[in-house]
């Protein structure tokens, strides 16, 4: 499992970024390069980030240190991201979830089919600023 104990790779210069809010975010993606980028960027914006590359790791993080927000990919190595989100939501019903995926969804599909599972949908092709804006909107 690789959550907050992952070796730091954020440069010190990022410390001049906005003050840390200390909010805890769990990022789930089967690609470690994606997780590294997300961690670096979110830490630079003051968030505390845990990462998981599969469902088991994600559940362990949720049980050991409940996150304030979950960011999940759709396609994971061992399960469906939406299914995992559904399981995590049982444990943390009030925790917002952002679906971060390369699969392009129709907004109508999001509204009709996924609204009950996820709080927001962000395409991986969108800038990271968009993701941070969604995070700020959801947890500040």
């Amino acid at each position, binding site marked *: 499992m690789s959550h907050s104990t992952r070796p730091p790779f954020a440069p010190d*210069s*990022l410390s*001049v970024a906005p003050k840390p809010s200390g909010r805890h975010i769990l990022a789930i993606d089967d690609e470690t390069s*994606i997780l590294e*980028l997300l961690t670096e*960027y979110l830490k630079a914006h003051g968030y505390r980030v845990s990462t998981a590359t599969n469902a088991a790791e994600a559940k362990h993080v949720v049980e050991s240190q409940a996150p304030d927000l979950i960011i999940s990919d759709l396609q994971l190595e061992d399960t469906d991201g939406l299914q995992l989100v559904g399981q995590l939501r049982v444990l943390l019903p009030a925790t917002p979830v952002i679906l971060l995926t*390369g*699969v392009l969804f129709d907004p109508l599909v999001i509204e009709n089919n996924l609204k009950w599972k996820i709080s927001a949908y962000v395409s*991986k092709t969108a800038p990271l600023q968009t993701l941070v804006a969604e995070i700020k909107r959801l947890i500040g």
Partner: protein
Amino acid sequence: MSSDTPPPVPLADPTLRRVLVFFTLILGVLIGIVVVSLRNLNRSIATSDWVNHTHALISELDALRPNLAAAEGELVRYLHTGDQRDHAAYQEKFADLGESVAVINALIAGAPDEKEQFAPIAALLARRAGLATQAVQLKKAGDTAGLQKLQDTEAEGGDLPELARRLEKLREKQTDLLSARDRASFVQAQVTRWTVLAGVGFDFLLLCGAAWLIRDDLAARRQAARLLAQTNSELEEKVRQRTAEISAMNAQLVAQNLEERWAKQAIEHQNRYNLLIIDSITDAVFVVTKLMNISRMNPAAVHLTGYEPVDLVDKPLAKVAQLADADALRRTFDVLARTLVDGHEMRSQAAVVTMKNGDRVAVQLNVFPLRDRDKVVGGVVILKSSAPSSS
């Protein structure tokens, strides 16, 4: 700090030199005052000694005539009484007189003028003593006539007036000298007083000058220190601002770099994802140029035609796919080419695929223009397998 701020004032050396010059002058004046004062003090002591000496001389001179009168009075009494007690008194008085002369001689020992003046007086006194001795001898010898003759001679005048005149002259001279010394002493005291006052005043002025220089120097130093502190403060503020700017720029660059890495990764991810989708399609998919040459084909196309991509890339699509109606072949591919020019789709055209092994397969042909923004840059040809045709 603005660019017109005056440069720091050069300090220390000139001011220090000036202050040292001032203090050297003050020291010189003080030494001068001490030298002059000591010299005048010595002069005053010498003058005082001389005055005492002169007063003693005058006192002795003043005592001469009364002593002489007293001695001669005792002599006259003895001459009348012949009493030995009067003789002893007469001798004692003349001895006192002789002692006074000896004292005066001692007092004027170093003064040639006084010695010269006193010599006739001493001689007159000696003469008077000699006459007294002569009278006593005549008395003792009982020579009354001789004694009477001696007394008559002296009664006519003698040398007493001369003695009195000379004594008075000597005394006046000493008194004049005393007055002159007194005036000189007063002048000397005044000179000493004014020398000390002038020196002290000059030193005070020099001290004021040195104090003014030091005050001026301190003010310059304080101003320089203020300027330095202000410059340092402004420099530190600039450094803080510049550091903040650089830090912000750095953070921005890092964020930008992360965004670029994220975008690149997203594109790669999306591209890989799309290719996987295309490769997983069971229909044969060809990507063609506007000239209908094949640029890409999916695994289903390999499976359908038996050709590998190396066999067909940059080859005309017509090599593997023809319309089923031979007459329509030319027309259709003209239409197909025109479709790519015009950007229209073409769907479900019956066609035949000639496989690598020569077998022929009936397919449905669909053409979709491939657009890059508003331009058609090629097309996607999808061949859907239908019933096999005879070879």
